[in-house]
């Protein structure tokens, strides 16, 4: 095409303009990571949540518990937890709920309406002292009562560490089974929320997974939270129930309104696969779901098996071992920092039990080993992309 000399400088400009237009229209594609291209990420688009009554009815686990066909109600995770506590308080007259700010409904609204229904003698505020809350709860449980104590953020559970580790966990053992604090349940919001930084984002499950005598649980969804919390409250052992706070509002399901309990120490296979076992818990499950979607899109024919551990202590090693014996590869992911995180325990146990079956080293995708930062959280988190990399490494070892 012949262009007049005067307009020669405009041709590249027009080309640039056309290029820019293309750039802007596909900015999301070009600016994002290659694997994420065109994908809907996160819990809002998750197919693992049972959002319809039909999906609840189709759940084999809920079928076996007899609640798959019962009435359901659309609830987010904090409403499901509220519902669980309501059932626990109704069924057991010795049960009480206490902690900082629980009486008005709680800073995350998990105890809304409980004080009005059950009275301020059973739903009450405590002074600002986690060690006091834990000790008080232990004392009530030692008398055979059911104490549901709330620690406002898992980041603040450390003042209570002595009471939990030295007292609650050892109460039954050291007394020769004369006394116990089985009625103790500690509930606490945990994990990253996007803007929590160092002290509103921690996932300290690994500290407690190291203590004989405790049970440690982390649910991934409203139906799971309700069933596991009721099981935790009624379990005759002191239990710590970690609630990923980002899921309080973002995870919504049709939750059975009945009183039901999900089994503790039983991992759930969320998606069967034959090439690699991917294990996680809590909010990380949704990053794993996305990573698996990307892998299966980019490597046709490859299928990944996704397992939600649900109970971190005592964990269901058998389900993971059976899966690894089938696939030969394992990837474990959690938000907590890498060194000495729970993935280290799982990796060590699996390599010991499945050594000759493993086709590649166990991959751990975890938070970076730094305090949880604010503006740099995107780099810290074991996101879907990092998990994608790890699964890819495992498959191509």
């Amino acid at each position, binding site marked *: 095409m012949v262009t007049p000399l005067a307009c020669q400088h405009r041709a590249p400009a027009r080309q640039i303009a056309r290029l820019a237009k293309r750039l802007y229209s596909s900015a999301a594609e070009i600016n994002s990571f290659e694997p994420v291209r065109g994908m809907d990420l996160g819990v809002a688009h998750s197919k693992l949540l049972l959002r319809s009554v039909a999906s609840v009815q189709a759940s084999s686990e809920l079928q076996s518990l007899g609640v798959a066909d019962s009435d359901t109600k659309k609830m987010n995770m904090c409403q499901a937890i509220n519902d669980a506590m309501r059932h626990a308080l109704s069924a057991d007259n010795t049960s009480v709920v206490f902690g900082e700010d629980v009486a008005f409904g709680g800073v995350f609204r998990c105890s809304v309406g409980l004080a009005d229904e059950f009275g301020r003698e059973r739903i009450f505020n405590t*002074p600002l002292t986690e060690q006091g809350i834990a*000790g008080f709860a232990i004392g009530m449980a030692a008398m055979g009562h059911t104490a549901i104590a709330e620690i406002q953020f898992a980041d603040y559970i450390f003042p209570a560490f002595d009471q939990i580790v030295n007292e609650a966990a050892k109460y039954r053992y050291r007394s020769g089974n004369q006394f116990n604090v089985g009625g103790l349940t500690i509930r606490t919001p945990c994990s990253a929320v996007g803007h929590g930084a160092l002290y509103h984002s921690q996932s300290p499950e690994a500290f407690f997974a190291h203590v004989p005598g405790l049970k440690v649980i982390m649910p991934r969804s409203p139906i799971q939270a309700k069933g596991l919390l009721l099981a935790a409250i009624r379990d005759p052992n002191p239990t710590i129930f970690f609630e990923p706070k980002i899921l309080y509002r973002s995870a919504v399901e049709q939750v059975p309104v009945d009183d039901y309990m999900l089994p503790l120490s039983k991992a759930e296979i969320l998606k069967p696969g034959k090439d690699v076992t991917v294990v996680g818990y809590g909010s990380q499950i949704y990053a794993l779901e996305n990573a698996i979607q990307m892998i299966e899109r980019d490597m046709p024919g490859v299928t990944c098996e996704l397992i939600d551990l649900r109970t971190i202590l005592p964990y269901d090693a058998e389900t993971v071992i059976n899966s690894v014996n089938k696939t030969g590869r394992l990837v474990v992911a959690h938000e907590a920092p890498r060194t000495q995180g729970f993935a280290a325990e799982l990796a060590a146990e699996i390599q010991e039990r499945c050594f000759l079956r493993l086709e590649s080293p166990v991959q751990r995708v975890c938070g970076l080993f730094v305090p949880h930062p604010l503006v740099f959280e995107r780099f810290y988190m074991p996101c879907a992309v990092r998990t994608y990399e790890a699964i890819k490494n495992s498959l191509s070892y």
Partner: protein
Amino acid sequence: MNLAALPRILPGLRGSRALRWTHTRLGQLQRTFDKALPQAHCPLTAAFSTSSCVPRKKVMFPGALDSEYTHELRFASNVESIPTYQVMDTDGKVLDAANDPQVTEEEARKIYKNMHVLNVMDQIMYEAQRQGRISFYMTNFGEEALIGSAAALDPKDQVFGQYREAGVLLQRGFTIQQFMDQCYSNEKDLGKGRQMPIHYGTKELHFQTISSPLATQIPQAAGAAYAMRREGKKLCAMCYFGEGAASEGDFHAGLNMAATIGCPVIFFCRNNGYSISTPSIEQYRGDGIASRGIGYGIDTIRVDGNDIWAIYAATKAARKIAVEQNKPILIEAMTYRISHHSTSDDSSAYRSKKE
């Protein structure tokens, strides 16, 4: 309003009746003003210093319970020590007839016998440890009068101890054989041989198993007391600890929770002057542990820890208040640890034989 300023403000008002009327009206206005506006925020009232003839204002913030404003910059500090309740003199004679314990001779004999049994058992078990028969032991020399507190309780009151409360167990009916079973970790030990000697615990006698971490039992006792309050059985929790353990965070947490939530628990501090080698002057600077109870809004009494009837009477009265009013009580018993801290301690390293 400064009355001295009045003649300048209202000249000619020196007549006494007019002055009195003015003073009354000004006082009324002052009171209305003060009620309506906090003094600090009102430049008008701030300009006038309050004289002694107008009432002082109460602080109106939710956190201030009964405080009044003052214009004197003065740091409060402890001046008067809380007195120590005593019933007997050193010869055992009841000084004031009104304090007579009103126990039967049988009860008194039982207490006296248990004090002796405790003393002799401690001597034998200390030697047993030195002979290598058991690994560890703690004696109670000098603190035998603690038995008086156990005598004042209901047998079903839940006891949360620290480690120097074997006398309480004796008074409750723990047999010498049972003490031995635990110390020797034999097959009859109720604790199943899992803990070091002197970590006794018995469900039958409502004595929670002793644990080594100090002061952890304090908030637990508050929680247990709350459970008992909910059951409505008019029982209380009894929590023993030493003055050293009262420095732990759990002490402050436990007392504050018991006071705010309303738990029928007796906090009994055995202030025996030492935490292993640390004397009480290095443990606290305030007026002992008793002054802390006041700080938490808890009714408190200090007693002579070697006066068995003082301990008995104080515990009995404390129990009545705790159970009837569902609130905690703090008792600080002043005594002296004659023994070493334990068989792993030789106290001549930090105190003279003369002491």
